[in-house]
């Protein structure tokens, strides 16, 4: 009796185990398959669609209001908003988590906001056998009409082989910011070229020492404002080839310019976001090239420079005398839809809302990437009376003249700059001393990321 009981228990256990294993196998088969019956109407293998499937949206804290506005405007859709550290410069959370979801075969969010433009280079490629995370947007998911509404060049960083993998939230072209009151008081002209900028620095150093014309104390300034803005080919990609040329005439001129201005004291090595910068320079910034978002982040920010209304102006970006009028770019967030989403219509609706709706204009802190939204935003900003001069025209000119030679590989130029140049300058070295190390670090990084280095 007892042995019979034991046998039946053993049989039950075996059945349970077999059922469990079958369930696991079935589940893994479901999750690993990317076909799922949704077809490939969008240029990728979509999973089976369900118009009522909830949307999981990852945003940084600054983008939470616009996601909530979408939720309010679409009560029929269930939207789960999750905030993550998408705005932190060095953060890899997005990539890390997608890599893990690719491994496990489930868990991907439907929409993600990221400030890292180089996300496209990995999100558009298949990793560890899973469907590329970023959904192709221009092959059926979003209409051409809608996509054409973006400012020229805004979608370039997210375009690979004519496929658009993300929509740009905002633009961050570099303009020349200046303190109109101080410039008039000192009798200086606003520079229009890099040459005039350097000449002005010598005058300032001699006549008004202590006043500054910019900072190189953050990892984005050297690469994005100066080297990119001055058309220096130190960070370029072509297909899978990466090049970094610090001996190009433009690169050498930038290196020389930075060293010259650090030497005469008009370029400082303090971070514009550091407590020291506000204490030391809140009334000493005579001018500086910087992205459009300096408007809200520095000049109109009570915790930063907090400039009085009517003192700060934006002028067209600086360029080399007689050469193309181009500029650099510092960021600009991107929205990605997930190719694994079960509600791609919802995803499309969300992407259109957050980039082009009236709410998008109201809730953005920077220049919207969608042209009509940008026009409204610029008109609002110009009419607020905070900025002097032709604010609207300066920003618009810069927005459409970002130099397209800069590369978007799967790593950021900021990391190498931060670990090589910033401590190097703090230790008294010059940019010319550090340029070979920086170049070596760029090439090494490109090589480990799988690029062919030339």
């Amino acid at each position: 009796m007892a042995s019979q009981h034991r046998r039946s228990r053993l049989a039950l256990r075996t059945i349970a185990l077999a059922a469990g294993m079958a369930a696991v196998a079935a589940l893994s088969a479901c999750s690993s398959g990317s076909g799922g019956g949704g077809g490939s109407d969008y240029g990728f293998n979509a999973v089976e669609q369900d118009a009522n499937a909830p949307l999981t949206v990852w945003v940084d804290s600054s983008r939470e209001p616009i996601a909530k506005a979408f939720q309010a405007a679409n009560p029929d859709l269930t939207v789960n908003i999750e905030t993550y550290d998408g705005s932190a410069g060095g953060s890899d959370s997005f990539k890390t988590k997608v890599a893990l979801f690719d491994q496990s075969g489930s868990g991907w969010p439907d929409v993600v906001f990221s400030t890292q433009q180089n996300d496209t280079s990995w999100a558009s490629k298949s990793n560890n056998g899973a469907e590329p995370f970023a959904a192709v947007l221009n092959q059926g998911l979003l209409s051409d009409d809608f996509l054409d509404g973006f400012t020229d060049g805004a979608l370039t960083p997210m375009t690979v082989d004519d496929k658009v993998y993300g929509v740009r939230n905002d633009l961050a072209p570099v303009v020349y910011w200046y303190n109109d009151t101080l410039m008039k008081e000192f009798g200086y002209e606003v520079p229009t070229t890099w040459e005039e900028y350097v000449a002005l620095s010598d005058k300032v150093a001699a006549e008004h020492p202590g006043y500054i014309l910019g900072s190189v104390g953050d990892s984005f300034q050297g690469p994005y404002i100066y080297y990119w803005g001055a058309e220096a080919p130190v960070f370029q990609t072509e297909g899978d080839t990466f090049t970094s040329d610090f001996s190009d005439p433009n690169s050498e001129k930038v290196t020389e310019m930075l060293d010259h201005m650090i030497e005469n004291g008009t370029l400082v090595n303090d971070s514009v976001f550091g407590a020291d910068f506000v204490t030391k320079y809140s009334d000493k910034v005579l001018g500086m090239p910087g992205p459009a978002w300096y408007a809200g982040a520095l000049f109109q920010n009570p915790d930063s420079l907090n400039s009085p209304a009517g003192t700060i102006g934006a002028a067209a970006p600086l360029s080399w005398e007689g050469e193309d009028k181009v500029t650099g770019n510092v960021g600009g967030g991107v929205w990605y839809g997930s190719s694994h989403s079960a509600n791609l219509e919802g995803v499309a609706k969300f992407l259109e809302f957050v980039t082009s709706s009236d709410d998008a204009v109201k809730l953005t802190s920077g220049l919207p990437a969608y042209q009509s939204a940008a026009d409204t935003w610029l008109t609002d900003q110009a009419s607020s009376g905070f900025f002097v001069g032709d604010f609207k025209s300066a920003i618009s000119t810069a927005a459409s003249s970002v130099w397209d030679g800069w590369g978007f590989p799967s790593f950021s130029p900021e990391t190498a700059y931060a670990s090589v140049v910033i401590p190097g300058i703090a230790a008294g070295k010059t940019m010319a001393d550090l340029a070979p190390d920086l170049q070596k670090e760029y090439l090494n990084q490109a090589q480990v990321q799988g690029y062919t280095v030339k």
Partner: protein
Amino acid sequence: MDAAASTATKDTLITTTVTAPAAAAASSEARRGREPSSSRRRRLDRSQSRIGTVFVSGYVLLLLAFGVFPTLYAVFLSFTKDGSFAGLDNFIKVFNDYRFLPAVAHVAIYLVFYLASLLIFVVLLALLVHGLGRRWLSSSYRFVYYIPGALAGASSVMLWLFLLDPSVSPVAFLLRALGFDTFVQTVSIDNLPIIFTVIAFWTGAGGWIVIMYGALNNISGDVLEAARIDGAGPVKTALHIQIPLMRKWISYMAIMSLAAGTQLFVEPRVLSQASKGVVPPDYSINQLAYLFAFRQGDFNGSAAISLLLLLVAGALSAVFVFRGGLFERD
């Protein structure tokens, strides 16, 4: 035994409370010249082994789930690529990576500083505190030493961020006297082994001092008394009696600290983010493994690094285990 010691010397206590009654019982039986009945001992053994099994089972399950199986998976990953056997390819790739040797050097230098300071100062401070005549003074010191240990790794780094930034630090005068005028200068790569040693010592040493204190308490008063009668002063007693008898605990501390030290990750990562990249994100070996997995999507290379780290840490630990006689019974 006072409160501070009782919380921190749990391992010591387990040994003493488990072995002491058994030893006492055995000696009393011996004194009475009577053998305990074998059936009683078998009963005792059985119930002890049952309760022992219950105690360790939870740990064993968690060890299997989060220690052994992941390790086996890492072994599998490190020898494969895209599911097929790749031989030593992953290891060769890791060795050839330009970041690997610097990361190994960084961790090695840090370990030398950290282990040396831990072994010297913890033992020294424990001996000093143990030597204090006044009971309240000794327990107060132990309590004060123990407080920083209450802060977890990341939060202690946050605290040190303020201490290391001359523009906000309460000890800015000290930093400036050392020639560091900015945060960037303070956290330059050459200073990092010292900075990480100070952070790790500050958070970890207190707990070890309390444990060493427990170990010192275990030394029989008779032995110390005999040494004193033979004319040994505090230094000779420490060198010839106390430190040799604490050998096991010192090697236990060395192994645990070595394991924690080789896995240096939180401190450089937080410092890297706080310094906006001035502290490189590939400073330590574990950080490099993280970059391999999540920035390059190369889980196989990452597993190879982890396995190498395990082998090296295992080999070094074995040295401490055998030199320190950790598994020898008294």
